[in-house]
């Protein structure tokens, strides 16, 4: 499985290098991180070794890294620019005071949105921006700065998922190019966010403030995931019901993303979600009597999935290799004690 993935990533990387043009440094980072498995040393100083028992602040900072990524994606999609400078600097005692760089790639406001679609993008962007601010406020001086984020990784990731030009019409995969592409881009994140919070919630020791907050953000991520999956399914039904019926390739593309995520969910064999599937494929219902698959949950009990910090890092780095410190959406790694995958 690892070999197959490495092959996929290699293909993605060559595609990415081609697309990235001058961004050779960033591409090299991903190559070092993803395909060789060697320890790429990021420019940011690596913090002290991982303590035996991570603190709540460590988990909240891990969540903050993910929220930085989501917020930048949605803010660019909604407005064409990202987080304000005041929202990305690190706290004095965080060990990561200087913000990383944002590689925008082709990130831009999604064109040709209807007013209703624009309002939806505005909402999700606002909500992820609010999560960044909420976590930063909760962490105070311990809040890490935004790590370097590469929004051009969507292309290589899509290629790794097997999403080809043919599958999504014309042009290469770009989540900022249309509403449908945007939905697939958002699909990459939302179910993962749900599983990340689900996996981390139980590890928080403060059950009066931190745990309720994490559970509340978990719920919001699931609302978002429900929205994205409902939209993809609804638009596929509408296309199939049109006269003449048309195919909606974005549903299949999302399922290819889900398959890649499942492949990248490695390590931590005792984790709940590695005992079975961690993904629920979207379905195109063909009648009022057949079920859709909006919810991503285990098929036996309809309980949502969870992922460990390692598994989430494998996904956002786009690498199943153990010992990787960076790559994918985080070309210098996350600003976190969990930055290096250990399983």
């Amino acid at each position, binding site marked *: 499985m690892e070999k197959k993935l490495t092959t996929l990533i290699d293909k993605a990387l060559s595609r990415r290098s081609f697309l990235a043009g001058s961004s050779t440094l960033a591409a090299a980072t991903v190559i070092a991180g993803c395909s060789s498995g060697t320890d790429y040393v990021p420019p940011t100083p690596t913090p002290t070794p991982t303590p035996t028992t991570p603190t709540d602040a460590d988990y909240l900072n891990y969540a903050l890294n993910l929220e930085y990524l989501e917020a930048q994606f949605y*803010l660019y999609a*909604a*407005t064409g*620019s*990202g987080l*304000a400078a005041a929202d990305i600097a690190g706290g004095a005692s965080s060990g990561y005071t200087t913000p990383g760089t944002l590689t925008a790639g082709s990130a831009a406001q999604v064109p040709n949105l209807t007013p*209703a679609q624009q*309002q939806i993008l*505005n*909402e999700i962007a*606002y*909500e992820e*921006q*609010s*999560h960044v601010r*909420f976590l930063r406020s909760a962490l105070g001086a311990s809040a890490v700065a935004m790590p370097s984020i590469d929004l051009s990784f969507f292309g290589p990731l899509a290629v790794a998922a097997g999403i080809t030009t043919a599958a999504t019409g014309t042009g290469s995969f770009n989540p900022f190019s249309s509403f449908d592409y945007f939905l697939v881009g958002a699909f990459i994140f939302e179910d993962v966010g749900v599983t990340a*919070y*689900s996996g981390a*919630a*139980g590890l928080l020791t403060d*059950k*009066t403030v931190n*745990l*309720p*907050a994490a*559970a*509340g*953000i*978990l*719920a*919001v991520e*699931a*609302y*978002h*995931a*429900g*929205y994205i999956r*409902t939209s993809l*399914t609804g638009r596929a*039904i509408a296309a199939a*019901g049109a006269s003449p019926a048309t195919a909606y390739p974005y549903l299949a593309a999302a399922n290819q993303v889900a398959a890649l995520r499942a492949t990248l969910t490695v390590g931590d064999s005792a984790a709940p979600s590695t005992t079975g599937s961690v993904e629920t494929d979207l379905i195109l*219902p*063909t*009648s*009022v*009597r*057949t*079920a*859709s*698959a*909006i*919810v*991503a*949950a*285990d098929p036996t*009990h*309809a*309980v*949502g999935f*969870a992922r460990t910090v390692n598994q989430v890092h494998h996904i956002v780095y786009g690498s199943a290799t153990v010992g990787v410190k960076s790559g994918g959406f985080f070309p210098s790694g996350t600003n976190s004690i969990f930055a290096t995958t250990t399983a």
Partner: protein
Amino acid sequence: MANQETQLLDEIIVTNRRKMLTLGASSLAALVLGASSTKAEAATVAYTDTDILNFALNLEYLEANYYYLAAFGTTIDVANAASTAANAPLISLTGTVGTAGTVSGGSAVPFSTITVGSYAVETAVEEGKHVQLLLSALGPTVAVAQPAINLGTSFQTLATAAQIPGGAAFSPYASDETFLVGAYVFEDVGVTAYHGAAPLLTSAANLGTAAGILAVEAYHAGLIRTTINYLDPTATGIASYTNLISTLRATLSQAGLLGVAPGTFDPAPDDYGLATFNVSLGASANVTATRLTDANPANVVAFSRNTTQVLNIVTGGGAVSGTTAVSPATGVFFPNGMNAGPNGFR
């Protein structure tokens, strides 16, 4: 499983005590449960782990029957061709605690769109599985029986209270649109109920299960709100009803705080319908946003409710009299109240 669940519930209890302690003595005095001394107060928190899981089970009975009736035209304990074709679990009503009741009202919705029909089928199956999970986790001697559930006239009572136009004749089983409104009544409440319970669990394994169900309820809520928004983007029809329902829920929920200044729970309003609101993004000024997520607009953390707040919503105000909690709370969806162990729910 039962052991895990038991641990989970023990943790809930510990957390409840902590929350009560944080309210302070004067606030506690206002609580029907409470006494002003810490020692006595701890003793009055009589919920067991099992109680909390049974509370969730009552809610899942309600939700599952609504979706089974709408999608298949049958209750969760009676299979028919439609439920069998959808592989919906046939629930054996093995719970024995309390008084078994019947489900009244409800009928198959004549779905006209694949979109809404398929969502109903999916949700029915998932809520059925939640009932199965809780029943098996608790075991038949500990699990509550399915209480009397009103899924007919209850909607008219609620719609009238919410001031939905034509509320006295409102039926969620009439069309795709009305089915969505009926579903809207439940899903956000499920999110807040699990959110209120999850932090009380001390076992990571049990907490994981609760968090996973919380996620599923939020997926459902997102699904419902998204679909209503797509069908009525200008909020002139069913989307406007969501505002009315959320306002009613917020009112009932705040009454459930029993006049105590909210500590760990949210101040009013703790519920928002689909009306748009204005936000600032990055360096951008005010822009208009939908409200597909039901969360605190200040920090965008989902709302959380305690058992009294949830009870007051699902009984249409039956859980509170003045500043006193009523137990058993009866009304609307639970005409005889929820089934509970010896401690009851309040």
